[in-house]
């Protein structure tokens, strides 16, 4: 993976010293909050309901063991002993004190990490397929391009004050695990005549105006990608709306100008920009490819794995749900669930972070990933090591075998932490996980996603079952959407009907699941397949009519 250059280290050191001085001036009264707020947000420091929150970028979700150890240290020393992994592949610390933040940032810088551009109207942390560089279905590792985008967008003077925030997601696989169609720019690697390039999707997004992104270009050669993206940003910077923050995302610009007009303007801008790069982007990309070269995989028998799989039902269940095919023979991708039944989705204690870091160092070629589904991945584990990895995870409470199942729920922090939230998300996720635990393997693949406000950090629009928490006349109320899809067949869920009170939302989800189990044609038909075959009506009936729900009147 990429290691920071001297330039990167020097940049961070300067930036951290600058922010340290800004905090000192705020505390000394030389800066008002109005003056300080944009400065702290540029450095990832929010003020939430109960405390400050520091959002730390994990570029394209990739970490090494030293970085994970440092996150654990930070969690223990300056927070409450845990961290929260988010749908943006970031980690959030929920309880820092203002005085401690400069030291936290210096500690991050020691391991090549920071909190820059995790807020503000700039290009945010570039997200990627969490199986990048490991997945058997991948064309190529997209992370060299992701790193190129990170370097290009970090502190880019032209793009620090965009009309609104800007999110880029990238995948090298035809099976989209990066939700590319719900980002301002989504990049999907494709091959044309054997050459690598990208399908460029623009104007996707969730939030109050959910939109599935449109294809701006079917194929941009890899060599042209950066100037092409710069051209998109440039057009957005010029023509995106600044009069209304709710109409400022690029999706609105695409809708108002039309995709053809956007395509023409981007093409015109690209024609000017392409030559200005003079090949510098290509040279850097070549260097980055070397940085992301595959690790030195070993060749070894898998007898130990085969024996454990045959004899140990707990291990077998873990393998069947939490292991994904690796492109390298003998290797596997391990997804570590941060969704133990009843636990807070995405939270890991410092001890758990250390366990995962040590496993990566010992068995995983020193790599970890954070998924947008709020889990942790060991992307390169030899199958013969899986029994030992599983045993260590079990001992740390990290071996929950529920990846992709009903309790593997995305949930934003909601009103338990977030100043923007209109209702709680976490307790709803906790309770759903508890009630589905006994039968979730029978239920099969099911994506439940929960947001605590219309900003949709919990991706509810693209959940098979989406839950949106709202404040209705001073009471928490939860709307359900059905049929969303976050993959390459992306779709927005449709609203089922009236919302449910806090104490009614979990029973409502149970009714949906009961209906699915009654309606499915065999165990192989998943919830979303049944929904697509039958449409929403039988599920609405289960929610509102046959059960005689009070809110249905």
């Amino acid at each position, binding site marked *: 993976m990429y290691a920071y250059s001297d330039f990167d280290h020097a940049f961070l050191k300067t930036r951290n010293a600058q922010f340290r001085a800004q905090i000192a001036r705020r505390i000394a009264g030389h800066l*008002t*909050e109005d003056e300080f707020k944009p400065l702290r947000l540029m450095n990832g420091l929010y003020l939430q*309901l*109960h*405390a400050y929150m520091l959002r730390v970028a994990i570029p394209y979700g990739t970490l090494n063991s030293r970085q994970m150890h440092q996150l654990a240290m930070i969690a223990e020393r300056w927070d409450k002993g845990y961290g929260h992994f988010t749908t943006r592949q970031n980690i959030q610390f929920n309880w*820092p004190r*203002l005085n401690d933040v400069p030291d936290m940032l210096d500690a991050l810088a020691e391991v090549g990490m920071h909190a820059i551009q995790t807020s503000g109207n700039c290009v945010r942390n570039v997200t990627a397929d969490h199986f990048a560089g490991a997945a058997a279905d991948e064309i190529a590792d997209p992370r060299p391009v992701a790193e190129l985008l990170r370097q290009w967008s970090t502190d880019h003077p032209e793009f620090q004050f965009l009309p609104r925030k800007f999110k880029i997601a990238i995948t090298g696989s035809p099976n989209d695990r990066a939700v590319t169609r719900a980002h301002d720019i989504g990049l999907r690697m494709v091959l044309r005549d054997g050459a690598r390039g990208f399908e460029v999707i623009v104007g996707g997004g969730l939030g109050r105006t959910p939109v599935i992104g449109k294809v701006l270009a079917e194929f941009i050669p890899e060599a042209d990608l950066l100037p092409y993206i710069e051209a998109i940003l440039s057009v957005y910077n010029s023509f995106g709306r600044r009069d209304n923050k709710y109409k400022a995302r690029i999706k609105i610009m695409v809708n108002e100008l039309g995709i053809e007009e956007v395509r023409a303007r981007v093409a015109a801008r690209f024609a000017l920009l392409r030559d200005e790069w003079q090949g510098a982007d290509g040279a850097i990309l070549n260097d980055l490819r070397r940085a992301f070269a595959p690790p030195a995989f070993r060749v070894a028998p898998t007898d130990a794995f085969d024996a454990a799989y045959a004899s140990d039902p707990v291990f077998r269940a873990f393998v069947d749900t939490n292991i994904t095919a690796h492109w390298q023979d003998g290797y596997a991708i391990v997804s570590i669930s941060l969704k133990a039944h009843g636990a807070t989705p995405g939270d890991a204690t410092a001890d758990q972070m250390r366990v995962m870091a040590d496993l990566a160092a010992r068995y995983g070629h020193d790599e970890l990933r954070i998924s947008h589904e709020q889990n942790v991945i060991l992307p390169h584990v030899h199958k013969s090591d899986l029994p030992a990895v599983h045993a260590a995870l079990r001992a740390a409470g990290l071996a929950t075998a529920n990846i992709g199942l009903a309790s593997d729920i995305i949930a934003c922090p909601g009103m*338990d932490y977030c100043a923007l939230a209109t209702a709680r998300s*976490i307790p709803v996720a906790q309770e759903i996980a508890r009630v589905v635990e006994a039968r979730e393997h029978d239920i099969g693949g099911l994506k439940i996603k929960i947001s605590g406000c219309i900003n949709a950090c919990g991706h509810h629009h693209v959940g098979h079952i989406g839950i949106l928490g709202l404040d209705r006349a*001073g009471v928490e109320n939860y709307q359900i959407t059905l049929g969303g899809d976050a993959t390459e067949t992306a779709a927005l869920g449709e609203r089922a009907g009236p919302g449910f009170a806090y104490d009614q939302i979990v029973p409502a989800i149970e009714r949906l699941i009961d209906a699915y189990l009654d309606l499915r044609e065999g165990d192989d038909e998943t919830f979303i397949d049944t929904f697509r075959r039958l449409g929403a009506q039988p599920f609405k009936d289960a929610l509102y009519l046959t059960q005689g729900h009070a809110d249905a009147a």
Partner: protein
Amino acid sequence: MTTRFTPSVVTANDLFEGDVIYLTDAGTWSRLHAEAALFTDPQAADAALEQASAQSDRLVGAYLAPARMGPNGPEPAHFREAFRARGPSNYAHGKQAEGLC
């Protein structure tokens, strides 16, 4: 259109800790909702808010939060304020862990 005034407390976040604080009758700041001054008169509430907002060297984001009088002092009148006064519901962190609610 005018909105009807509801009894309120003046609340903010502490500049250093980020913790939720409340303006008291004595003009000091408390971490306990029950020790907050409850304003039933809109003009007095606005004046208190203005005075609080001027103290930007120790607090952030002062505003009026709806409240009602309870047996032990003012209580939050909205669930958001109840969470601010207590802490998150997934862990015993924040005020609930410090005996401040």
